[in-house]
Structure formats: structure tokens, C-alpha cells
């Protein structure tokens, strides 16, 4: 039982980290950024390239080295997110909302198959691995590395939440989420704030990519697709646009999958997770912490 909970929370923290980017971008632009999962993939490959360029990492230094790589990768994927927004999304801000969906899917294809052209179709294996021995805690096997990853994820998420709720920048983001036009009239530089939002969201996805690469070891050019879908689901469960809700949504989705596998077997897991999601949304149509909004396609 405790093993199931721990499995769910661990996977869920990855979902949450990726889902946050979804939620932030949705919050300020009402855009479902389908390319977001591919930024996670880009992060994993950037980390892989940085580690390769740096040569070997002395054993025992794996964790600090990875933290360094994490920072570099976050900068790279963050900038990639900014570039993506500038090229593919900003020119279309006045167009119907779903037009952005096309460029998002287009960007997703371009990122995936561009990476395939650069790095090849076969999976790559991270040169540094977070393995390590497990300890029994309350009946669940937990490794130090897992705890380290969860701590990093929690720190990143808390930092983000503070940024959004306590700083000027965050207030600007929330203002744009409510009403971009009025925000502009009030002297907020909407373009700049949206750029920075993309930077933050993409950086978090990149961080999740490096962490997944280092922990699981295998990366490939399509790795972002499935987790992108999961992150979107998690964001909606929590109440899309709402940051603490999204974190909860990620963890909840992880738990649902873990318990679904246990109760019904692996082949029915996603049916279970989506089934619960649908039931949940019909009862509570705005997600866990989302607010009632009126808008249309």
C-alpha cells in the first residue's frame, strides 16, 4: 500500500512539473501548448549533450554535476520556449484561439523530428545514472535519489508559486490572465510578461526532462508526447490555470495510475485514470481548485 502511494507520488511529481508549464501558458494565453511535452524532450537531450561535452563525471559527484547540468538545461529550454512563442504563437495572438493549436502541433512535429534528424531515431542512454540502493521506509522501497529528485521538484514548484503569488512579475502574469487588454492599458508590457512566462514554464519542463533522463536512463525523440498528454490531463484535473491545483492534479494522476494498475492490471490503467477523470469532471466541472469561468472556443 505505502509502496503504491510512493510510486504514485514519485511519478506524479514529474507530471506536476511538466503540467505547471501547461498551466502557466494556458493562464496567460489560453493556449494549449502541445509542444510543451517536446520541450521536456529537448531538456533531456540538452542535458545529454552537456554531459557528453563535459566528458566523464567522477563517481560520487553525480548529484552535484547533475544539478549544474540542470541549471544549464533550464536556461536552454527556457530560451527555446521564448523563441517558440516569438515565432509560432505571438503573430497569431489576434487569430481564433484554435489557430494557435495548429502552430502548436506543427511546432511539436518540428521539434520531435528535428531532434530525430540531429540525434537519430534510436534511444540514447544517459552517461550519468542515479541508481543507488533502496531503503525501506514504512514498507515502501525508497532510494536517496528518488528523494533528491522529489525535493528538487518540490523546490522548483514552491519557487514558482512564490514568484507568481508574491512578486510584481507574478502579479503582472495574473493580471494578464484575467484580462490582457486592460493589463496593457495599465502599463504592463504584455509581450515581455508572456515571454517570461514561456521561459519559466519551458525551463521547468526542461528540468523535468533532465531529471527523467538521469533517473530512468533512456531518452528518445518521442519521449515528450505521452507525458505531454499526461501533463495536460493533470493540469485539467487540478483546474487549468491554477498553480497549486496543477501540482495537486499531477500527484493525483500519479496516484490514480498507481492504484489503477494495482486494482485492474496494467492494461486497464489508463481506462481507469481517464474514467475517474471523466466522472470527477462531471461532478466538479472546474477541476480541483479551478474557478468557475465563462469563455468560449
Amino acid at each position, binding site marked *: 500500500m505505502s509502496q503504491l502511494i510512493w510510486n504514485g507520488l514519485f511519478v506524479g511529481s514529474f507530471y506536476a512539473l511538466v503540467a505547471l508549464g501547461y498551466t502557466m501558458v494556458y493562464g496567460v494565453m489560453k493556449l494549449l501548448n502541445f509542444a510543451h511535452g517536446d520541450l521536456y524532450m529537448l531538456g533531456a537531450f540538452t542535458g545529454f549533450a552537456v554531459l557528453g561535452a563535459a566528458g566523464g563525471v567522477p563517481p560520487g559527484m553525480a548529484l552535484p554535476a547533475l544539478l549544474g547540468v540542470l541549471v544549464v538545461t533550464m536556461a536552454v529550454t527556457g530560451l527555446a520556449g521564448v523563441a517558440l512563442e516569438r515565432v509560432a504563437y505571438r503573430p497569431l495572438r489576434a487569430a481564433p484561439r484554435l489557430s494557435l493549436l495548429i502552430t502548436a502541433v506543427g511546432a511539436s512535429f518540428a521539434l520531435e523530428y528535428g531532434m530525430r534528424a540531429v540525434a537519430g531515431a534510436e534511444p540514447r542512454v544517459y552517461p550519468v545514472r542515479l541508481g543507488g540502493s533502496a531503503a525501506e521506509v514504512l514498507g515502501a522501497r525508497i532510494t536517496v535519489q528518488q528523494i533528491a529528485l522529489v525535493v528538487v521538484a518540490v523546490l522548483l514548484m514552491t519557487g514558482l508559486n512564490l514568484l507568481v503569488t508574491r512578486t510584481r512579475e507574478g502579479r503582472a502574469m495574473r493580471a494578464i490572465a484575467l484580462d490582457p487588454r486592460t493589463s496593457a492599458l495599465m502599463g504592463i508590457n504584455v509581450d515581455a510578461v508572456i515571454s517570461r512566462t514561456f521561459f519559466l514554464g519551458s525551463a521547468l519542463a526542461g528540468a523535468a526532462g533532465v531529471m527523467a533522463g538521469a533517473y530512468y536512463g533512456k531518452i528518445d525523440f*518521442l519521449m515528450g508526447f505521452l507525458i505531454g498528454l499526461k501533463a495536460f490531463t493533470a493540469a485539467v484535473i487540478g483546474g487549468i490555470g491554477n498553480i497549486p491545483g496543477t501540482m495537486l492534479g499531477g500527484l493525483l494522476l500519479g496516484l490514480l495510475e498507481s492504484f489503477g494498475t494495482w486494482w485492474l492490471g496494467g492494461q486497464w490503467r489508463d481506462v481507469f485514470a481517464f474514467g475517474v477523470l471523466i466522472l470527477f469532471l462531471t461532478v466538479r466541472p472546474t477541476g480541483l481548485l479551478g474557478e468557475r469561468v465563462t469563455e468560449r472556443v
Partner: protein
Amino acid sequence: MGESRLATIWSLAAAVTILTAGCGQGLLGGGQEGGDQGPIALGMLVPQSGSEAAVGPYMRNAAQFAVDEINGKGGVLGRKLELKVADDACDAQTAVAGAGKLVTEGVVVSVGGYCSGATLPTLPVFGKAGIPMIIPAANSQELVDQHLGHVFLINGTGTQQAAAAMAWITKQGATKVALMHDNTSYSKDIAVRTKKLLDEPGGPETAILEAVTPKESDYSANITNVLGAKPDFVYWTGYFQEGGLITRQLRQAGYKDAIMVGDGSVSGKLAEIAGPEAAEGVYATMTQTPETLQGAGNWIEAYTKKFGSPPGPYSNQSYDAVRLAAEALKNAGSTDGTKVIAALEAINGFPMFSGPLKFTADHTLSAGGFQILVIRSGRFVLQDALK
């Protein structure tokens, strides 16, 4: 701009298109053949995009390797061979379009087919065109059950692989076996057939039959399930990417007993993904490969030199498919589909990696030639030939 002028423009445009493109490929044009000159085209449908894109290059390169080798020796029937590759994306519709493209390009034998789901709908496309198919990888029972004359499978079947797995499980003295598959037809087929053998009274029994979702990273939930059933033998019948992750995560979760994987997982990448310690001692059910054949070292070396990376899953079957096609063309003395099919049926003892070839009445291998491999220092080596 009035509507009448518009209509004129449209009809003009249409007329131009018809005039420029209409060169006998339409319904009214005469049927044209590729002619008996120039290279003989072999067609190969493999996934080059989509979820299974990683496997495409292994198969394509190996087939090209065989084509170059045969051409180096003067080709077949006095003509060179040419390999035409089309992407099937492991998707039925893309595969049917790709098969149509290959037929249109005049291929005389198909040597592709990896995903069963994408290969099945291409059978009638090649069949109607009278083109024999030598399928190197796809091996689901549905391909056999239709008893189509033009379809030949040179990969071991699920039944043969399950029997080999069962033999080794029994030999190891295992008592409770966990079967894990990825819910693709190939993988589930082997797992379910192995389960049937295990369910026979006496001997080892099934601890659990667990399906995982492919292309994910975290299988801890499935592994918790599997370990909850307390197995002393785990058999993974899917592909190497998940195989590597599952092996690693099983070991991390404290599982110490035997792990075995199916032939889709036999790749050096599995050991890389799992990490050297976790992968050490993992068994595999596999047809003979260059790695386990005496004197095949040169083949691997030459392949690696040519393509810059070592052969991978189904490289040897793809290589053999091309050689077999060439042999059948030579024996038939013609590129005519019916004659090539007859030549394929008559083949007896043609040397392939999987052993001397003779087709059964079902057009499958008479002997799967499955062996047990084991990972030693990151490489699959022969453990037991199951003779």
C-alpha cells in the same frame, strides 16, 4: 470576376493538369510494365517515423547491406538489385499507401514488414499485384491464419518462441513465472502462448500476466504488481526499450531471481539502458544471430564499418530476407510472382542465420531455431542452444 470566367479558369487549369500529368498512368492509359531492363526492385516497408521509428534503420541498413553484397557478385538474373524503402510508421493507413507506392514503383518481391498491425492490411495490396512477400520480422498468428499463398514468414513464430521459453523455464527449475507484455499483438501473443504452456498441469505455473503501456519511463506500478505475486522468474516479451527499463526497475525494487526477455529485446541497447549490473545474467529467447554464430564476426564487423553502428533487432532477418529473395529469383529464372512463389516453396536447406531454411505448409519456418542467450558484460552471448 464573373462566374463564367471563373469556370473557364478552372477548366483551363484542369485541362493543363490532365495534359501535363496524363502520360498513361490514368484509367485510359495502357498498362505499362517496368520492363525487363534495369535493376530488379525489392520493396521494403519499415517504420521510419512514429513510435517504432528506431527499428527502421536496423532493418533498412541490413537489407541494403545484402543488396550491395549481391550486386558486388554480379546481381541476379544478370541484373542488379535495387532496394526501395517506404515508411509504414507502424500505422495501417500509412502502410497501405506505402505498399501501393512500392507496387507502383514496380517492386517484384516485398522484403519488409515489422509491425503486425501495419503489415496485415498490406497483404491484399501485394497479393492483388501478385507480389510475393518475405516478411522478416512481423510474425503474429493472424498473418499465418489467412493462408495466403504469397506470404512467407522468416521470423520464428510466437508458438516456437513460447516453447523455447518454456523449455528454459523448466530447465531452470523455476516454479512461479511472471509474464510481462506490452499489449502489442507480437508481445501479447508470446506471453499468452507461454501462459498456455505454463497452465498445463505439473511443472511451473503462472504467477501473473501483466501488461504495461509502451513508451513510458516509469514501470514501478507494474513492477509492484509483479513482485506482489512473488515470482522466481520474470519473462518480458516486448521490445528492448521497455525491456531495459523494466530490468533496471525490477532490480532496483529488490528482485533477485531470473529475468528473461523475448527476441524483440535482444539488442545491446537493453544492457545499456538497464545499466551493466542490472543487465548481467538476463536471459533471452532468440533465433540464431550473428553474435552467436561461429564465424559471423566478420559480418558484424563489415556491417558496423559500413553503417557506423552495429546491427540491431531484426537486422539479420532483413539481411536474410533479401538473400532469400535473390535466391528465389535466381531459381525461378524470372521476376514473375507465381514462379517466385513456387521457387520459395521449393527452397530446401538455404543457409540463413536461423539455420537451413525450409518452409512449412503455412509458409513459416519449419524450425524456429530459438536458443537461449544471456548477457555477459553488456553483450548477449549463447547460453544454451536447446538442442
